[in-house]
């Protein structure tokens, strides 16, 4: 009730005082508060806009930005689209004649994608999918896949994979599993900080303008109070020349201020000796500041728009380059793994060769011993053969002697036979009558004996001849055997020397193979370490690519905000530069936005640089510098 009474009293008082005013005063006091209130509203809106940006860019606030969220349904949809691309690739590979194995790889990729669709935070599935994709890239590298469409689709899959993985990684990092995903990252915060830096520079001016407008509003209220204290303008007795002049001045001031309600900042109130001179001067000052402020906002927004566009393009290019770099690094890492495996196999082969060399040394030693034994045996055989040769020579000599004696015996038998014949003839002659005597019978027996002896000696001589011939052949054979034994002995000695040389060479070979095996093993370890380092670099590059994508997205948002800012101040009309060339304030209004925009662009570049550096350091596990958020 008290409130309604107070309101009723205030209304009555205002009505009473309002009726005391003249028509022009009523118009002035109706327009001026509205204009001032509109100005205050615009300022408050600008302040509110800066405050919103500051709130978004504040490091203490959440990184969630409702304009850049990734809905889970969107992630699922992108995974489905990715799966559709992989299925297309699989159909192409199945239709190819030499790409059945690669079609199997794409089928495995689809299985991994199903696992990813069920649980996007499954890093193992993501890693397996990336490995299978790398196998396809290796197949492209080895010309197993040659069609340009499949090659381009594989490259597109890698790019989509990087973006999709980055989005899901951001979702997981923000801890919003299955909820709203915050896309902004460190890069976006850096860009917002730059916007904040630019817009925060405007805030002091806005705050300074507010008291001025409030003072003007208070002045209008005071004038309204003073005017209402005076008698009404309709009272003819109170009409004086001064009041008429003041009325005219106020009306002129109101006429001059009227375009400001439409946002025309080209207005200029006339400063005179009248009572509205001070008010006009204050109004001109406020309009000048507002003009400068709107000009600065337009110029800065345009500069920001242009700089952000360029930076966004650069970020997109860097993101694409990082994707390509990550793929090449991954491929190089695969090659290093293959090289490491190959070197490990070489080491194993070298170890096996070393074992074979050891066996070769042992075999050579055993061969040397065997040949030495053979040499001794050959020496014994040669001595036995020499003895046999000597015995054969003696046998030949003996057979010759037997043959000689047989000839003597044969000659004796022949003489005996002849003697017996002559004896018989003498005996026959002695008997005269032709009858045989005892002598003739004895002669006949001697003749028979001689004949037998002759036959026996002939057989002995024949046998002796055979023995002599066989002994001669045997002797020749033994001599030939001796010569061959000598040659074999020499060859055996040479073989023994060769085996000893082989043993020495095998021993040296074993040492060298052992050296090769150990060095190869060490090199395989180095290559493995190099591959691991490449993996770390690959992770850093992938993170950089994702970060650059996010930065490009944030820069696009920043550009939208700059455009929105331009739109918000588009309603204000500024004077032409040529017309304001003589005015010192106009020059300031041209220079200040340029300086401010340059400052903003410089800060944006510095922020992007600091962001790159912080991501590289973060990839190695170092703590980011404290100046990152500054």
């Amino acid at each position: 009730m008290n409130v309604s009474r107070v309101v009723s009293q205030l209304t009555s008082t205002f009505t009473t005082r309002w009726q005391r005013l003249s028509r022009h005063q009523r118009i002035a006091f109706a327009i001026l508060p509205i204009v001032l209130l509109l100005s205050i509203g615009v300022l408050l809106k600008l302040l509110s806009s800066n405050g919103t940006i500051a709130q978004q860019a504040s490091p203490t606030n959440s990184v969630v930005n409702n304009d850049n969220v990734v809905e889970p349904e969107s992630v699922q949809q992108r995974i489905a689209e990715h799966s559709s691309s992989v299925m297309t690739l699989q159909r192409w590979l199945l239709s190819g004649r030499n790409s059945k194995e690669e079609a199997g790889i794409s089928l495995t990729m689809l299985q991994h994608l199903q696992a990813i669709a069920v649980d996007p935070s499954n890093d193992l599935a993501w890693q397996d999918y990336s490995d299978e994709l790398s196998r396809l890239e290796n197949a492209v590298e080895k010309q197993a896949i040659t069609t340009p469409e499949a090659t381009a689709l594989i490259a597109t899959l890698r790019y989509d994979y990087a973006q999709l993985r980055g989005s899901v990684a951001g979702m997981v990092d923000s801890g919003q599993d299955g909820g709203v995903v915050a896309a902004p990252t460190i890069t976006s915060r850096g860009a917002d900080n730059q916007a904040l830096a630019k817009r925060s520079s405007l805030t002091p001016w806005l705050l300074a303008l507010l008291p001025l407008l409030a003072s003007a509003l208070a002045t209008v209220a005071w004038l309204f109070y003073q005017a209402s204290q005076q008698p009404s303008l309709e009272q003819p007795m109170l009409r004086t020349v001064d009041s008429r002049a003041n009325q005219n001045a106020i009306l002129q001031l109101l006429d001059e201020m009227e375009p400001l309600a439409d946002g025309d900042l080209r207005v200029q109130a006339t400063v005179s000796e009248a009572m509205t001179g001070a008010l006009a001067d204050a109004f001109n000052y406020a309009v000048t500041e507002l003009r400068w402020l709107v000009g600065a906002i337009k110029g800065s927004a345009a500069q920001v728009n242009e700089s952000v566009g360029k930076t966004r393009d650069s970020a997109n290019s860097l993101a694409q380059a990082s994707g390509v770099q990550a793929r090449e690094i991954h491929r190089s890492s695969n090659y290093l793994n293959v090289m490491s495996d190959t070197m490990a196999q070489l080491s194993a082969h070298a170890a096996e060769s070393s074992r074979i060399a050891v066996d070769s040394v042992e075999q050579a030693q055993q061969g040397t011993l065997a040949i030495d034994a053979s040499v001794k045996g050959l020496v014994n055989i040669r001595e036995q053969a020499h003895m046999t040769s000597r015995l054969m020579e003696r046998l030949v000599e003996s057979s010759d002697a037997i043959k000689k004696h047989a000839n003597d015996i044969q000659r004796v038998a022949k003489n005996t036979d002849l003697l017996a014949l002559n004896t018989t003839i003498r005996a026959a002659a002695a008997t005269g009558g032709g009858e045989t005597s005892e002598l003739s019978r004895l002669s006949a027996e001697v003749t028979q004996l001689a004949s037998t002896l002759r036959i026996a000696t002939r057989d002995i001589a024949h046998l002796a001849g055979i023995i002599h011939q066989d002994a001669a052949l045997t002797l020749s054979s033994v001599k030939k055997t001796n010569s061959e034994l000598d040659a074999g002995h020499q060859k055996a000695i040479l073989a023994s020397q060769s085996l000893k040389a082989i043993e020495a060479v095998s021993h040296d070979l074993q040492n060298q193979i052992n050296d090769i095996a150990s060095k190869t093993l060490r090199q395989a370890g180095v290559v493995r370490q190099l591959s691991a380092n490449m993996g770390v670099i690959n992770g850093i590059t992938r993170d950089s690519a994702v970060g650059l994508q996010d930065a490009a997205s944030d820069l696009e948002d920043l550009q939208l905000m700059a455009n929105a800012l331009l739109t918000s101040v588009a309603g204000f009309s500024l004077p032409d530069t040529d017309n304001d060339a003589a005015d010192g304030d106009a020059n300031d209004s041209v220079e200040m936005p340029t300086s401010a925009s340059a400052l903003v662009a410089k800060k944006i570049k510095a922020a992007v640089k600091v962001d790159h550096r912080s991501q590289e350091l973060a990839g190695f596990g170092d703590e980011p510098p404290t100046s990152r958020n500054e």
Partner: protein
Amino acid sequence: MSQAHVMFRAGGQSFAVASSNVQAIHDELSLQSVGDTKKWFLGLAVADGVLIPVTDLAGYLKLGQASGRTFSGRTLGISPEVGVGALRVDEVIGVDDTATKVSDAVLPQALQANSNLFSYSLEASTGEHWVLDVPRLLQSKRFIDIGVSA
């Protein structure tokens, strides 16, 4: 008892001479050739201190080519009571007094030219042997005339 005969071979034919016509059988006599003599006259030799002419019987009987005559055979020394001379034969088989005389035997073709020297043959264990009439041989003009001009 039949007469003993010395059985021998010469020029591929088997002959026999009465043992009484033979003084001795010589082996490896040292011959001394004589020029301008018939081929069947082998030369002169000393046997038991006596110089005797040696004749190749097969050559004389013109059996040389058929028998393949050589100088390695033995020499039958003719008994001085029959004459001076010696006959070179290929082989002396022995003395046989058991051979049977065959009167109607046919003289081989090779001996037909000298059929006057053979009148009968002896059938012995070693075959048929034609008996050479040594005295007629030594007294024949052709046997004595050993010169080439003759």
